[in-house]
């Protein structure tokens, strides 16, 4: 290797490392706040959580050193091997792990407890990068596509078998990578829409305003918005007129319906109005498609029809096929059921913790919500509560901004990569961090369903910290080769 003259310490991306250190330190202080007991051990005592997190952080630096010392090619060469071993470990975990809090995801080796699922992320990312960068790989080929799906879904299924739904869902983040590598945006849009429609419909189901069921109305309005937006994007010869016509017509119809409701107090079901508007828009688009020979319009119609169909079939299955106790279970597992002693309680207390922080926060170790254990899982999944309560709006938005810079930095670095393997791996890392950020913070501030996944670098736990550290630093090691060659 004649190129390896440039020291790794000169070629590595120090900006990312700086962001990493900032987050690790902020995370440690948050754990101190979350696990501080009035009458208990000091912050540096290894039997307490801040103390043991300090040990995990220390060991992370050992890991980092090893990762950076290894040759960059090592990761590409051994990626399938690493992936295979991790899959075997995941399967073994299903059978070997004792049940802890309803899941079988922890391997207990002496005093050490490890969660293999946390290490499967980088392995999957490596395997996916290897697969997609192989010679002659085309995402559009059915065989290749199915191979990608296999790589993504194999660990996902194993983790589902361990009853760790949250960790399993993280693998959906790889679809962002597929999107970057050429998968149609419609697939992503369809997926995001399906999840959003499902959650929104469930969240507002059974809520009637006048004669209108809000769940359906909200989803239908979103469908109409997306339809209009797509029409706008797929305009023909820079002609925005069709989209404008739809916007004006939609607004007019809603306004008239609303006025009729106000003036004559006729109970109007706005779901019917919305369906009518969507139908009318589709007719208009068919007309445009035939007139201008732009078949994209037909895709939009397909999207609208499928969405509406999806909505009502979910409705039908949920309300007519499922038993009431199954309905409740789905809602509770999605964190939608307002159950004061269950998931609803957590979110409510976590909103109180964050909300009570105010603009400037209560100060380090001064949070009452978190210190008095009102927020369950406050040093793991709900760690952001401590940031919100003790550091206030300033601290928590700064944390979010650091995260955003970190992820965008990863995207920028990925795009700079000269090999497909490095780029795909880089995008995998960025996507996984992004997914964790969206779901974890969204859950804590009550925007997304309660899905228990950690906030990278903040949540307490060695496995998670090491998993994220390995994930990140393999990419930094790969990135460092840009300047070596």
């Amino acid at each position, binding site marked *: 290797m004649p190129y390896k003259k440039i020291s790794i310490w000169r070629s590595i991306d120090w900006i990312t490392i700086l962001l990493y250190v900032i987050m690790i330190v902020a995370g440690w202080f948050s754990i101190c706040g979350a696990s501080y007991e009035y009458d208990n051990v000091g912050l540096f005592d290894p039997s307490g959580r801040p103390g043991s997190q300090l040990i995990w952080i220390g060991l992370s630096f050992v890991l980092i050193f090893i990762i950076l010392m290894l040759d960059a090619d090592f990761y590409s060469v051994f990626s399938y091997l690493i992936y295979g071993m991790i899959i075997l470990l995941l399967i073994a975990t299903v059978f070997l792990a004792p049940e802890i809090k309803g899941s079988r995801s922890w391997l207990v080796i002496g005093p050490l407890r490890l969660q293999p699922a946390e290490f499967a992320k980088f392995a999957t990312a490596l395997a996916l990068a290897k697969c997609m960068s192989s010679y002659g790989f085309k995402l*559009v080929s059915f065989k290749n596509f199915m191979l990608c799906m296999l790589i993504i879904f194999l660990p996902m299924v194993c983790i589902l078998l361990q009853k760790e739904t949250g960790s399993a869902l993280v693998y959906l983040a790889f679809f962002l990578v597929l999107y970057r590598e050429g998968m149609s945006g419609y697939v992503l849009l369809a997926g995001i829409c399906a999840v959003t429609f499902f959650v929104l419909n469930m969240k507002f189901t059974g809520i009637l305003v006048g004669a209108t069921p809000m769940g359906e109305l909200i989803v239908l309005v979103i469908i109409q918005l997306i339809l209009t937006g797509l029409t706008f994007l797929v305009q023909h010869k820079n002609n925005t007129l069709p989209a404008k016509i739809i916007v004006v017509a939609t607004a007019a119809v809603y306004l008239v319906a609303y006025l009729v409701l106000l003036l004559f107090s006729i109970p109007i079901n706005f779901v019917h109005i919305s369906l009518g508007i969507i139908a009318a828009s589709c007719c208009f688009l068919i007309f445009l498609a035939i007139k201008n020979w732009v078949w994209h319009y037909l895709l939009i119609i397909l999207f609208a029809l499928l969405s509406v169909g999806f909505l009502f079939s979910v409705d039908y299955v949920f309300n007519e096929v499922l038993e009431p106790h199954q309905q409740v279970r789905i809602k509770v597992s999605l964190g939608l059921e307002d159950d004061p002693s269950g998931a609803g309680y957590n979110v409510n207390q976590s909103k*109180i913790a*964050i909300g009570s922080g105010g603009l400037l926060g209560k100060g380090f170790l001064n949070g009452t*919500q978190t210190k*008095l254990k009102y927020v369950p899982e406050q040093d793991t999944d709900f760690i952001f509560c401590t940031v919100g309560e003790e550091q206030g*709006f300033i601290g928590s938005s700064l944390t*979010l901004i650091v995260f955003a810079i970190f992820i*965008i930095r990863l*995207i920028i670095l990925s795009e700079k990569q000269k090999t497909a393997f490095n780029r795909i791996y880089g995008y995998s890392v960025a996507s996984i961090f*992004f997914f964790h950020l969206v779901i974890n913070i969204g859950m804590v501030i009550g925007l997304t369903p309660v899905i228990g996944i950690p906030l990278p670098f903040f949540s307490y736990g060695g496995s998670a910290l090491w998993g994220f550290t390995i994930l990140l630093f393999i990419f930094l090691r790969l990135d460092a080769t840009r300047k070596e060659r």
Partner: protein
Amino acid sequence: MPKEMQTNSKYALENRRYILSGAVILVVLIFIIRLFYLQVIENEYKMWADSNAFLKKTLYPSRGMIYDRNNKLLVFNQPAYDVMLIMREVKPFDTLDFCNTVNITKEQFIKRIADIKNKRLNPGYSSYVPQVFMNQLSAKDYGVLQEKLYKFPGFYIQNRTIREYEYPYAAHILGNIGEVNRRDIEQDNYYVQGDNSGRSGVERSYEKVLRGEKGVEILLRDAHGRIKGKYEEGRHDVAPVSGKSLTLSLDMDLQAYGELLLHNKIGCIVMTEPSTGEILCMVSTPTYDPNMLVGRQRGKNHAMLESDPLKPLFDRAIMAGYPPGSTFKPAMGLIFLQEDVITPETSYSCGHGYPPLGGKPACHSHFSPISLVPAIATSCNAFFCWGLRDMIDSRKRYPKVQEGFDIWRDHMLSMGYGRPLGIDLPSEKGGSIPTSKMYDKFYKGRWSSSTIISIAIGQGEVLATPLQICNLATTIANRGFFYTPHIVKEVHGGEMDPRFSVKHYPTIDKKNYEYIAEGMRNAVTGGTCRRAALPGIAVCGKTGTSENPHGKDHSIFMGFAPYENPQVAISVFVENAGFGATYAVPIAKLMLQKYLKGAIQESDKYLEDYIINTAILPRDAL
């Protein structure tokens, strides 16, 4: 699909980084907006967090004590025990055993639990927070319960204090405390459900002085309701401030003696110290033992007293409006002198009554014509009727009868009649002095002294409280001024209301009082109240007999002693006891003797026995 994929050039795919980066920025922006809403705009979360974490424990101050003018302790605090209940912590227990221990029935137990849980009756209910299950358990029941308490999880004992009264007297003056109601809580946010406040008497009028200031201890409570210590080492705790004690101007021995004399009679005795306006005793009978309205028996006893036809809860001394009868004549005389209607030498004729109206109102036999001083001494009715006639009927003096009457009324008001004097006790009434407008309405504007002649002798539309009558005696004793009568002499560690040290001068010249005082002295030496005479003390007095449409006349006495440098003013009122001389005068004599000499002379013992043993009550109450 394949066709579309091929159109995606490498360049187009690279551009997808903007969409992905845009998505990151959008999500973080949404989160920051949401955080801004939660943390900066919405303020409720802070409150919720505080109510989660802080258990604010009230520290109750001890209530101020009450002493009499001779430093006898009258009212103090005794420990009592409330049975508290935290609903969440209750586990199944032997209900019957519990009920027997605290002396209640099973039905009462069930009802009490239901009442506690009823959000309408108990708005602050929470199953986490201690609720009062039973208050003021006796020391005996407390002892038994304390030993068994381990069997009843969720039940606790909270120490409280209750009031105790050393003497069974002066219930109206001392008053009592009771649990605050919804309206009290709305009017003063100092109180919360379950607090006590003064309900009557001094306990009520000096509530803010006596109660002190509650303290608070802020404890940290975790999600399981466990106390994790004091918030910031108790830096925000507030220690309770004990209530201030009061010294009353009341002489408890005198009060007790007055209550003894009026035993089995309906009436009042008010005695004041003219030089200060301090009330020495203020008896109103029938009365009750203030200890009846303490503790768990309070509700039952209060209902019983309330339904008593003799109205023992009614403080007649300041709340009853009686026709003052002849005790009104000194005030009339003062106005006549002041308005130059008469001179001390002016004499009017009296022929066993008031001649212009055919001998009505009637009078008893005495010489005629008669001047002011003997008219007071013999309580001549005709003299004061003549006087009123000369004052308001003469068009030379005032152009209209209304004008003359209004001047008369203003003088009366200045002497403390017609409106509450402002004593430091709640619910004082002001009696009644009619207005010219009232008569105009009543007689359609055509009236004269003859129409309203009964007011000249303190009858008719004129009403006064025994306190107001005593106040007239005080004013005459002082020869022209009075202090607002008050029952509290000193607030320990505090200041008295300055309005009690302001001299009030009625619109009568000082010199005019001498003639009235002389007449009152003569009434004792050789007039209507000879029985009030005491050896060695120049008692001055005026009897009264107040006509009462409902039964026998009320017997009244008003006076002061001694004639020079008076030390005490008194009014006595005995309902349905006939002439003033019959009961009110001997009672006043005994009271003055008790106060000025400290004991009853041997020759009056028979009188004392006679008064004590006489019952004058409505037939159905006997």
